């Protein structure tokens, strides 16, 4: 049995030995149960126990608890110990309570009086015991009971230093629980001045408290900056003998230095006063200089303490982000650490550099270390260090080095740890997209990703490559050729089959000229993978097949055979069965024209930022540089289902399949519900009850592209539109809400700016059957900026009575916006450049209701410009940027919207290179919030 310090409790030591001698878990439990029974009987027994015995048993219970057993008695005995006049008994009582009592226990009320008594004691050791207990429990009750007493203790001149230290941290703990307990006013300055206290221990404790107070109320505690800088300066210039016991392995007061450096990170810039700033810079320089000095000791403690201060200084420099030479110096210093033999230092250097890479001043300096960072990613033995290297490569990547970094990451991915693969895949995908100058490179990278780490390629990643291929004509043939080649590998990942299937279904025709990739070959290649794939992929492939029938009529028979195969037509899976039978019918019944319409090439996806980024952000909040946009909408599922899923009867005619002219099922809907079903995806999000949208409210379509454009009791007109550059496609859905046909439906367009906006309307069927829905397509081309919004009148005959309705089309200038991402610097540079009288437009208007920033934000997000966050110094303001595409020219446009909550007003300013554009955008947005 080892020596026991202090006044040992022999019974306790014996018990601990017994437990340790137990040969098995069962024996241990048996011994413990025996002891518990013994203690219970002692506590319950008639004989009153003396203090020592109580202490011993309470201590045994504590030990049993620490072994991992539950303790449900003994609390009262522990509480009794608190009022013992023997310190050792009191102390054990306090220990039991702080280890075993939960913050919300009823016992707390019982102990408050004991704590109060000890707090009043003249013996500082007793006072500290009480303070430690309050800090350990730190409940609301404690805050209420001692909230006034402890601040007094902290600043009183009579309080001893050791008590002040505990009081400061005790107060901090209570403040975290109940922030209202800190008195303001004159207390503020007294608390701040603790930074000047001669006792280093008091300053160390007080700095933590002040740091928390500053976070809550930076302005009130601003005065601490000067004091903190002065204190820091005294420490870093001190020789290691000056501070005596506060020097740790030749480093003067490392803990206090770090706390002060942290405290200063609450302010940007640390101070407006040039004197204070200068002094701080000197401190930071000194810290760097000391880092270069030869070590005063070989012990790791020395270098750790010294470097701890250095890293914190670098954090402050990064936080201030204002002194280029310090930032570059930090970067060089960290560069040295990258090849240090201490793993810990390499880890921290990589992490810290990640932050430096996001500063414009040091980004270039970080890039100099690219080679060694790549080596770290490949060679480090510890996966967490490799992970840091990957993060840093991601952060340091830009246009100039993207190709190399992506290449290296791809190469590393082949052997990378499973735990970091998924994240690496996301990072590679984002970098490849963000910095692609040539989209064939992008396609290669993503296909490589799938080849190397297919299991870790999430849906978002392959959705995204398809979005990009569809939106960029120049890469489509290349993509088709590349996937075709990739699919020829004897084994290829299912994600490759998905991408391949989708792309060949859309663009297989672009490579069909080559006999090596003739239609027949393409189809057979895809189909050779079919039986190895999951149901979801098979479903996708079936859609590809019907698309191929449209592209290449010559393989129709072969494809029909596949549809007819029992494994499809009678598949156990309902989705496969439905697709096989519907596609089969479609290929039999529909004419070439109908096929061509239904299976037309997918329209371009709205240009938006990668949804992959959102996934990465979710995985690693706060570690992704914020300069990139995000979007929540992934690719919709394969298109043909959207058209076809309205049918629930697989034996219906082909017309039924298309959901164009007759209602789903045979029963005409009595309410508007059937129509809602047909429009399915259009209305699920809005669910507007028919009666609420009686007429045409065009203003809301400023912020969205889909919805119900017009509705009365007879007819409902829905719209779904897409815009790309200066072109737009608008689908109108006419729905008959009645049980009788609507006849002679005749829409007509009117607008005056014919030379500025070109709108074409495709002809449509004149009859709208009961409960049915017809679609009509419109195309729009913006030639020059316009103000006149086209209106449409629809005349028809219902029940022999002619009707006419008119409405505005949701076709406003903002629809031709392309969002533009830019950083604060370039935004304000452009903003200044566009300051001329001819370029600005401004309106001040009253808010429509109480100012709702999230609502405003949502609206702006739908307007078409890019919302730029973190640029305006006032976080309530919104700034946006976008380019209006017209056939004649592209007009860059900036917007700033400043809400004034007090006045319930908004000020809207638009600046663009063209006066009429500024005016029109300003008019559109005014009075909208």
């Amino acid at each position: 049995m080892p020596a026991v310090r202090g006044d040992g409790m022999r019974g306790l030591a014996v018990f601990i030995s017994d437990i340790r001698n137990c040969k098995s878990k069962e024996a241990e439990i048996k011994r413990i149960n025996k002891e518990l029974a013994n203690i219970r009987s002692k506590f319950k027994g008639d004989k009153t126990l003396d203090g020592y015995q109580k202490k011993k048993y309470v201590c045994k219970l504590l030990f049993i608890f620490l072994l991992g057993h539950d303790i449900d008695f003994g609390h009262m005995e522990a509480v009794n110990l608190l009022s013992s006049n023997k310190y050792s008994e009191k102390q054990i009582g306090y220990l039991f309570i702080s280890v075993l009592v939960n913050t919300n226990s009823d016992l707390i009320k019982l102990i408050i009086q004991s704590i109060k008594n000890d707090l009043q004691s003249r013996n500082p050791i007793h006072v500290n015991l009480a303070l430690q207990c309050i800090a350990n429990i730190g409940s609301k009750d404690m805050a209420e009971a001692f909230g006034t007493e402890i601040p007094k203790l902290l600043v009183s001149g009579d309080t001893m230093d050791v008590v002040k230290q505990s009081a400061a941290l005790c107060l901090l703990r209570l403040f975290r629980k109940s922030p209202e307990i800190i008195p303001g006013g004159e207390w503020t300055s007294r608390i701040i001045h603790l930074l000047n206290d001669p006792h280093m221990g008091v300053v160390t404790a007080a700095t933590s408290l002040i740091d928390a107070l500053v976070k809550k109320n930076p302005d009130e505690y601003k005065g601490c900056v000067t004091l903190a800088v002065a204190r820091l300066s005294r420490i870093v210039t001190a020789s290691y003998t000056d501070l005596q016991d506060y020097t740790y392995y030749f480093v003067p007061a490392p803990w206090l230095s770090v706390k002060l450096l942290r405290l200063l990170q609450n302010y940007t810039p640390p101070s407006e006063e040039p004197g204070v700033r200068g002094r701080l810079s000197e401190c930071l320089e000194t810290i760097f200089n000391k880092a270069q000095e030869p070590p005063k000791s070989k012990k790791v403690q020395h270098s750790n303490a010294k470097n701890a201060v250095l890293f914190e200084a670098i954090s402050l420099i990064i936080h201030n982000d204002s002194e280029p030479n310090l930032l570059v110096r930090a970067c060089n210093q960290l560069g040295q650490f990258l090849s240090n033999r201490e793993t810990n230092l390499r880890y921290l250097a990589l992490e810290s550099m990640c932050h430096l890479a996001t500063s414009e001043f040091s980004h270039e300096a970080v890039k100099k270390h690219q080679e060694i960072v790549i080596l770290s990613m490949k060679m480090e033995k510890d996966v967490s260090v490799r992970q840091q290297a990957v993060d840093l490569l991601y952060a340091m990547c830009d246009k100039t080095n993207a190709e190399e970094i992506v290449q290296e990451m791809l190469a590393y991915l082949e052997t990378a740890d499973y735990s970091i693969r998924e994240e690496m895949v996301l990072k590679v995908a984002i970098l490849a997209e963000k910095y692609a100058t040539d989209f064939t490179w992008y396609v290669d990278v993503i296909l490589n990703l799938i080849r190397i780490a297919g299991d870790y390629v999430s849906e978002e990643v392959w959705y995204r490559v398809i979005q990009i291929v569809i939106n960029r004509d120049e890469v489509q043939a290349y993509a088709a050729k590349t996937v075709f080649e990739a699919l020829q590998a004897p084994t290829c990942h299912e994600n490759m089959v998905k991408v391949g299937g989708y792309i060949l279904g859309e663009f297989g025709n672009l490579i069909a000229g080559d006999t090596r990739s003739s239609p027949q070959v393409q189809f057979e290649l895809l189909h050779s993978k079919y039986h190895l794939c999951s149901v979801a992929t098979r479903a996708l492939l079936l859609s590809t097949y019907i698309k191929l029938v449209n592209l290449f009529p010559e393989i129709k028979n072969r494809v029909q055979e596949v549809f007819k195969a029992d494994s499809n037509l009678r598949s156990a899976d309902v989705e496969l069965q439905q697709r096989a039978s519907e596609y089969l019918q479609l290929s039999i019944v529909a004419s070439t024209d109908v096929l061509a319409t239904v299976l037309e090439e997918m329209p371009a996806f709205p240009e938006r930022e990668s949804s992959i980024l959102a996934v990465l952000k979710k995985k690693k909040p706060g570690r992704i540089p914020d300069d990139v946009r995000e979007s929540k909408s992934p690719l919709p599922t394969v298109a043909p289902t959207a058209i076809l899923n309205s049918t629930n009867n697989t034996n219906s005619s082909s017309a039924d399949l298309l959901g164009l002219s007759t209602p789903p099922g045979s029963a005409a809907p009595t309410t508007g519900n059937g129509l809602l079903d047909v429009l399915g995806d259009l209305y699920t999000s809005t669910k507007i009850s028919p009666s609420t949208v009686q007429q045409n409210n065009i203003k809301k379509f400023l912020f969205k592209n889909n919805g119900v454009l017009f509705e009365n009791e007879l007819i409902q007109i829905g719209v779904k539109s897409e815009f790309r550059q200066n072109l737009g496609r608008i689908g109108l859905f006419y729905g008959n809400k009645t049980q009788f046909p609507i006849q002679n439906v005749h829409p007509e367009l009117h607008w005056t700016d014919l030379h500025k906006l070109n709108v074409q309307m495709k002809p449509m069927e004149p009859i709208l059957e009961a409960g049915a829905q017809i679609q009509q397509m419109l195309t729009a081309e913006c030639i020059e900026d316009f103000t006149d919004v086209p209106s449409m009148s629809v005349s028809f005959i219902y029940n022999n009575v002619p009707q006419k309705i008119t409405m505005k089309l949701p076709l406003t200038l903002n629809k031709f916006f392309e969002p533009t991402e830019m950083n604060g610097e370039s935004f304000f540079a452009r903003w200044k450049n566009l300051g001329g009288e001819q370029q600005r437009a401004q309106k001040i208007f009253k808010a429509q209701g109480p100012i709702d920033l999230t609502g405003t934000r949502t609206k702006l997000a739908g307007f078409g410009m890019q919302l730029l966050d973190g640029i305006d110094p006032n976080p309530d303001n919104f700034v946006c940027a976008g380019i209006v595409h017209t056939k004649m020219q592209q007009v860059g446009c900036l917007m700033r919207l400043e809400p004034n909550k007090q006045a319930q007003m908004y000020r809207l300013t638009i600046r663009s290179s063209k006066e009429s554009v500024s005016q029109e955008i300003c008019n559109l947005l005014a009075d909208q919030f």
Partner: protein
Amino acid sequence: MMQFMLLFSRQGKLRLQKWYVAHPDKLKKKITRELITTVLARKPKMCSFLEWKDVKVVYKRYASLYFCCAMEQEDNELLTLELIHRYVELLDKYLGSVCELDIIFNFEKAYFILDELVLGGELQETSKKNVLKAIAAQDLLQEDETVDAALRDVGWL
């Protein structure tokens, strides 16, 4: 701010636990179990820091005992490592070349020393001398009481 500190053996036996955040017992047990497994699985030359759930874990092994602190994101890793070292130094000085067994038998002392070093999750006193002085003062009170008791027993007081 430190969220908790755990001391455990190479065999995964918990020797000391100190929590600075309020969690239900069940959660504490779960965290302890998972963290011990994670740390024990790491190889000797690996880095002493790891991102674990939402905390930053800093650990170091001294002989058969692991000292493991869970810190918040902005806390300084290297200094946490030295905080552990300071604690070990204090235990060593007080208990005399400390080993795992000493901590088992003097667990209450290990708590008292920790309370002087760290309070409410924040570092309170970094001076080794001052901490030992505070503990010595506590011991002195105890001894006085023992002497008083002995004197009382023989009727001299």
